[in-house]
């Protein structure tokens, strides 16, 4: 069965390592924070100027001066630091952030990503997404494998305006875990109960399937 958004987040959390500095985008990526293994030290960076982001505040303890990049009220953990937006993107551009997780509308089998603009619709802006994808050492995309019409979002090339080129390293969808390699998407794991055939049929871009593809472990 296809994963729900919580399971996608849970699977991505398995990519975390002790000592990682991580930037989590809005949507499913935000949920990854709930699955950081006990005892593992992972620091969350919020590009509006915070390292050491904590959970949402208890009711009545919200502080308008303390928000994340999604403009949500948050808290900080011991050892947190505030900085300005230039230093924030400085640490992103200089590769100090170990992992960036973000959503996508489309990803190409070259690792291009489109997630900011749909022609004909009001464009809200790229925010920090273009900086993040152009800079991160390691980018994981959290996404649904297909759009609501059932069309593949993993394409030979993106049809929407790009956010960044050749930057996505790994994709965790509701159906599969894939690396993005020089030769295309490489299938690594499938969602429990989802067949390799289904993944192939729902992947429009080049998909490499080699050997036995195991089910994801949680």
């Amino acid at each position, binding site marked *: 069965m296809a994963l729900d958004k919580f399971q996608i987040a849970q699977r991505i959390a398995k990519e975390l390592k002790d000592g990682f500095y991580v930037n989590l985008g809005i949507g499913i990526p935000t949920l990854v924070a709930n699955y950081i293994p006990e005892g593992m030290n992972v620091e969350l960076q*919020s*590009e*509006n*100027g*915070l390292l050491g982001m904590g*959970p*949402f*505040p*208890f*009711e009545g*303890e*919200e*502080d*308008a*001066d*303390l*928000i*994340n990049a*999604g*403009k*949500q*009220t*948050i808290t900080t953990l011991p050892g947190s630091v*505030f*900085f*300005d*937006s*230039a230093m*924030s*993107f*400085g640490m*992103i*551009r200089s590769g100090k952030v170990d992992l960036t997780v973000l959503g996508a509308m489309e990803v190409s089998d070259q690792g*291009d990503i489109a997630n900011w603009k749909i022609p004909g619709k*009001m*464009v*809200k*802006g*790229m*925010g*920090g*997404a*273009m*900086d993040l994808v*152009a*800079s991160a050492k390691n980018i994981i995309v959290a996404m649904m494998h297909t759009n609501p019409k059932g069309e593949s979002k993993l394409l030979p090339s993106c049809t929407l*305006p*790009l*956010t*960044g*080129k*050749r930057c996505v390293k790994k994709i965790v969808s509701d159906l599969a875990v894939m690396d993005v390699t020089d030769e295309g998407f490489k299938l690594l794991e499938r969602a429990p109960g989802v067949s390799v055939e289904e993944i192939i049929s729902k992947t429009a871009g080049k998909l490499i399937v080699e050997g036995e593809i195991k089910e994801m472990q949680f």
Partner: protein
Amino acid sequence: MNKVYSGADQAINDIKDGSTLMLGGFGLCGIPENCIAALVKNGVKHLTCISNNAGVDDFGIGLMLQKKQVRKMISSYVGENAEFERQLLSGELEVELIPQGTLATRCMASGYGLPAIFTPAGVGTEVAEGKEVRIFNGKEYLLELAFDADFAIVKAWKGDTMGNLIFKDTARNFNPLMAMAGKITIAEVEELVQPGELDPNQIHTPGIYVHRIFKGTGYEKRIEQRTIRKKS
């Protein structure tokens, strides 16, 4: 040399139609509420506003949009604003979208006397159109110019009469960067103190960058996305 102004009305009084303004803040966090209210009251028009966001319909820069005071917005993200969308679609308002890190760094570059920066953000996208691309260590970068503004309007937590500023939490965001990039920089602060009351090791914006300062009043500090958890 007195930098202290009585309030927002006096501090923004000489801003003329057609000026370029930088306004600090991220979303509604750390925005110069007093100066925005004074600009709305004053009615100055045809402004170019450089600000990460454009406020919401009835707060922040949204208030200036309602009064049709803004000709052009230069931002990274302009969602959450229906009036903005209406003016944009009708052609009354022009918008230039810039990646957030590029926006921040171009402000800083101005305050650091660096005429341009190279950034990888936007390479291979429509943001790169017409821009010089240059390769350093095998990676492509765009040349982006520093930018300044006729007036930078920022909000700080504490300031002293010499213009030294301290920001609080994530209300810092673009404020110290824009403070460095204004030909004239106006700072509104929650607390205005005498020289020597702020720890000289802990000042975020040195007063040399700040031309006018006043103690703001009545901060609403509206929250855009109130997210909470339950006590278990």
